[in-house]
C-alpha cells in the first residue's frame, strides 16, 4: 500500500477520570521509518502508545495503523503490530525458549507464518545463549527486556510499538538493544514507533521525532531539522528551548 502511512494520529484526546493525559495530538509515521516520541515522565507517551496498541480507546480523535482504525478494526491492527509495554514481564514459569515458542505458535496461527523461523530469529535477537533454557523467573531485568524485545521483533510486524525499550537498563544493555532495533528496522523494513524520555538515545535511533509535553506535541521533525531550528547542539537542548517557548512564549 504505497502512500498509506504506517501510523496516522489525529486530534487524539484521552482523559483518566479527570486527568487529561492527551489534549489533542496529531502525527504521522511513514512506512519503514523509526519514529521517536520523546518527552518527560507523565507527558502522555505511554497513553499514546497504548491507544495505538488497541489497549485503550481514545476519548476523541482518530488513530489508524496502515489505514485500519484502532478501535473499529482492532483485530486487523493486532495482526500488523507488536507492542512492547513500558513495564512488562514474561511468563515466569516458562523458559525463555518456551516463551518464544508459545508466542510464535500464536502468531503462526493468526498469520500463517512459520513458527520455527520466528523462534530462530527470536533466539538471535535475544542473544541470551544457554540461559534461554532457564526459567524466566531467574532472569535479570535486562535479560527479560531482551527476551521481550526479541518476542516483539521476531514476528516481523509491519509496525513495532516500543515503549521505553531501554528504560532501567545498564549502559551496555541499552546500547545493544538500540543497535538491534536499528539493524532490524533497516533489514526488515519494519516501521517503528519508540518512546523515550532519553533525548540522546532518540537522537541516535530515530529518523524523525515528535516532542510531547503535557499531553501536547510541541515539535515534529528530524533530529537535524530540530537542532538547526533551535540552534541547539542536541535534542536535549531542543527540548528545553521548545517547551520553554510553550510555557513562556
Amino acid at each position, binding site marked *: 500500500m504505497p502512500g498509506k502511512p504506517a501510523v496516522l494520529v489525529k486530534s487524539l484526546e484521552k482523559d483518566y477520570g479527570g486527568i487529561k493525559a492527551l489534549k489533542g495530538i496529531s502525527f504521522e509515521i511513514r512506512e519503514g521509518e523509526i519514529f521517536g516520541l520523546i518527552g518527560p515522565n507523565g507527558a502522555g507517551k505511554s497513553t499514546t502508545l497504548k491507544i495505538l496498541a488497541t489497549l485503550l480507546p481514545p476519548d476523541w480523535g482518530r488513530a489508524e495503523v496502515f489505514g485500519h482504525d484502532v478501535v473499529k478494526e482492532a483485530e486487523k491492527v493486532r495482526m500488523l503490530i507488536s507492542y512492547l509495554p513500558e513495564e512488562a*514481564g*514474561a*511468563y515466569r514459569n516458562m523458559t525463555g525458549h518456551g516463551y518464544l515458542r508459545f508466542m510464535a*505458535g*500464536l502468531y503462526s496461527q493468526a498469520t500463517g507464518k512459520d513458527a520455527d523461523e520466528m523462534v530462530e530469529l527470536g533466539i538471535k535477537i535475544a542473544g541470551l545463549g544457554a540461559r534461554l533454557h532457564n526459567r524466566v523467573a531467574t532472569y535479570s531485568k535486562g535479560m527479560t527486556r531482551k527476551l521481550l524485545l526479541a*518476542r516483539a521483533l521476531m514476528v516481523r510486524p509491519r509496525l513495532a510499538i516500543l515503549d521505553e525499550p531501554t528504560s532501567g537498563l545498564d549502559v551496555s544493555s541499552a546500547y545493544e538493544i538500540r543497535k538491534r532495533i536499528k539493524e532490524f528496522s533497516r533489514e526488515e523494513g519494519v516501521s517503528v514507533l519508540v518512546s523515550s524520555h532519553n533525548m540522546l538515545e532518540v537522537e541516535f535511533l530515530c529518523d524523525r521525532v515528535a516532542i510531547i509535553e503535557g499531553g501536547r506535541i510541541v515539535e515534529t521533525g528530524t533530529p537535524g531539522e530540530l537542532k538547526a531550528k533551535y540552534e541547539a547542539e542536541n535534542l536535549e537542548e531542543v527540548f528545553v528551548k521548545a517547551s520553554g517557548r510553550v510555557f513562556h512564549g
Partner: protein
Amino acid sequence: MGELWIMFKKELADILRDRRLLAAIIVPIILIPLLFGVLQSSSRSSSLVISVVNEDSGEYSRALIEFLEESGVVIDNGSPVRLVIPAGFSDAIKSGRSPSLLIETELSSVLDFKTVRLAGALKALVLRFGEGVFPSIRPEFRLDVGGSVLSVEPSRYVSALLRSALAVPLVLFVIGVYASQAVAASVAMEKEGKTLETLLTLPVSRRSIILGKIFASVVFSFLVLASLTLSAWAVSMLPKTSGGGPTGVSVGVGPVVFFSAGVFLLFLLMLLTSLLVSLFTLDVRSALSLAGLVEVLYLIPLLVAFAGLDVSGAAGLLVKADPGYAPLWAFLSATNGDYLRAAAAVLYLLLWNGLVLRLAVWVFESGVLMTKSIDAGKLRWLIRVKI
C-alpha cells in the same frame, strides 16, 4: 481452534505451577467439614417439635414420652414428624420382646432437610431411651414425600437421594467453587506478572483468551475433585453408619435434568462472575478474595436450603432472587410437575449468564483493564471480615 489449544495449555501449566492456588485447594477442604460441624451442632440446639400418637396405655410409653419431654422435646400435633407408639408397646417390653415404634415423617418437599433432621434427632432420642430398657427398640419409619409413601428412614432417603439423583449436580457445584477461584487467579496472575498488556495486543481473539482460562480452570477443578474424592473415600472407610444399600429412592428423570441444567448454568455463572470481578483487581490475593465473595453470594440459597432455615420477608425475597436459588427452584417445580416454572428458572439463569458475559466482554474491550484496579490494600476490610 489452534490458538485456543495453545492458550489452554499455557493456562493450565500456569495454574498448576502457582503455589498460591494451593490456598484455594486447602481452604475449602478445611472449611467444608467445619461448616457441616457448625450446621450439625446448631441443629442440636434448636428445639425439637414433634407430634405423638400414643396407642399404648402401659407405663413404658408414658416413660418414653416423659423422657422425650425431659430431653427438651416439645409436643405439638401440627409437627410433620410424628411418633406413633402402637398398642402393646409396654407389653412387648415386659415380656422381653423387641417393641416396635413408628416414626412418620411428612416432607413438604424433596429438599425438606429441616424435617429430615428433626426425624433423625427423634430417632437418636428414642434409641437413647432404648438403652435403658432391656430389649432394644427398633423404630420403623414411614416417609411421605409429596403424596408418595416410602418405608425408609428419612436420613437414609436423603443420602440415597444425594448419591443417586443429586450426586452429579452437587459434584459440579464443588467443581464450580474451585474453578471460579482458578479463573479469578489467572487474570490477576497476568496483571501481577505484567503479561496482560502483551497478551491483549496479540492477534488472539478475546474469546480464545477467556475460554482458554475457563477450560483450564475446569480441568484444574477436576484434578482438585479427584483429590477431594480420595479424601472423602478415606473418610467413608471410617466406621460410621451401618447399613446403606439401595433403597429404591428416585425422584424421576425430569427434576434431575432440570436440577442438573440449573447447577451447570450456575457453575458457568460463577466462573463468568469470578472472571468479571477479577478484571478489576490488581493482584492474585484480592482476586481470590473477591471471587470467594462471589461464591458465597451464590451459595447462600443452597446453604439456607440444606441447613433447613426458614427465611421470610425481604431476606427471603433476596434469597429467591439470587441466581443460586434457581437450580433448587427448577428442581422443586419439576418434582411438583410444574415444568413451566422449572423452565423459567433455567431461563432466569441463562439471562444472568448472558448479562455477565456481555459485561465481561465489554470490560475486556473498554480500557477498564488498563486503568481500574483493586489491590489487596483496598480489600483489607474484606480479608479482615473473612478472618
